[in-house]
């Protein structure tokens, strides 16, 4: 019994990622897609949010959205895992529920 949280908003523009992380339970997973992948880059002012969340949640980033925005996987905050759409599907299977933070 765990939840996959899906975030699609840039954390520099909106509060969705911050709100998601403050409501995720231990053992949940967080997937960053669309503009939310921009928050995954190391050295940004939101990196600390992800680093502290990694203690209790797995965090994934969608590779197709990273590539579209010119971000190489080697630039990401350490500990984040990159998945493609096929991996996105697998995450929705592994977690028996999911929530989109729109």
């Amino acid at each position, binding site marked *: 019994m765990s*939840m996959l949280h899906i975030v699609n908003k840039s954390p520099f523009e909106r509060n969705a990622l911050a709100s998601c992380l403050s*409501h995720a*339970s231990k053992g949940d997973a967080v997937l960053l897609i669309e503009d939310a992948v921009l928050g995954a880059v190391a050295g940004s002012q939101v990196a600390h949010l992800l680093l502290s969340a990694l203690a209790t949640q797995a965090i994934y980033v969608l590779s197709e959205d990273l590539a579209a925005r010119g971000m190489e996987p080697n630039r990401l905050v350490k500990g984040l895992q990159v998945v493609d759409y096929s991996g996105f599907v697998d995450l929705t299977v592994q977690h028996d529920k999911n*929530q989109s*933070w729109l």
Partner: protein
Amino acid sequence: MAVKKFMYVNRKAPYGTVYALESLEVVLIAAAFEQEVTLAFLDDGVYQIVRNQNPKLLGMKNFSSTYKALGDYDIKQLYVERESLIERGLTEDDLMDITYEDEGDDWAEKSSLTIVSRAEMAALMAAQDVMFSF
């Protein structure tokens, strides 16, 4: 088929966008399906149930009274996040009276609103089956 627990997560303010109104339309339909329905109001979603909404000068429909009717649809689990209120300079007194009649207690009128902490909201979310957000 087993009953599923549906949560409607409201995180957006009314009128600036249509999501609050059209979300409520889903909730009204959902009531007919005999599933467990919970509404969560957090972040800007708390503005959806603020008192004295009056969009008349905008030519828009005042749909806030519909929240008050949710009890008639047997929807009586409305959770409001305390931290979201405080961050916005709001208190519980700013919220509409939303009630239901308790069948098991001689139809006494009781509040459908429960103010919860962020941690309690997180626990409520973790206990659902299907999460709808708009």
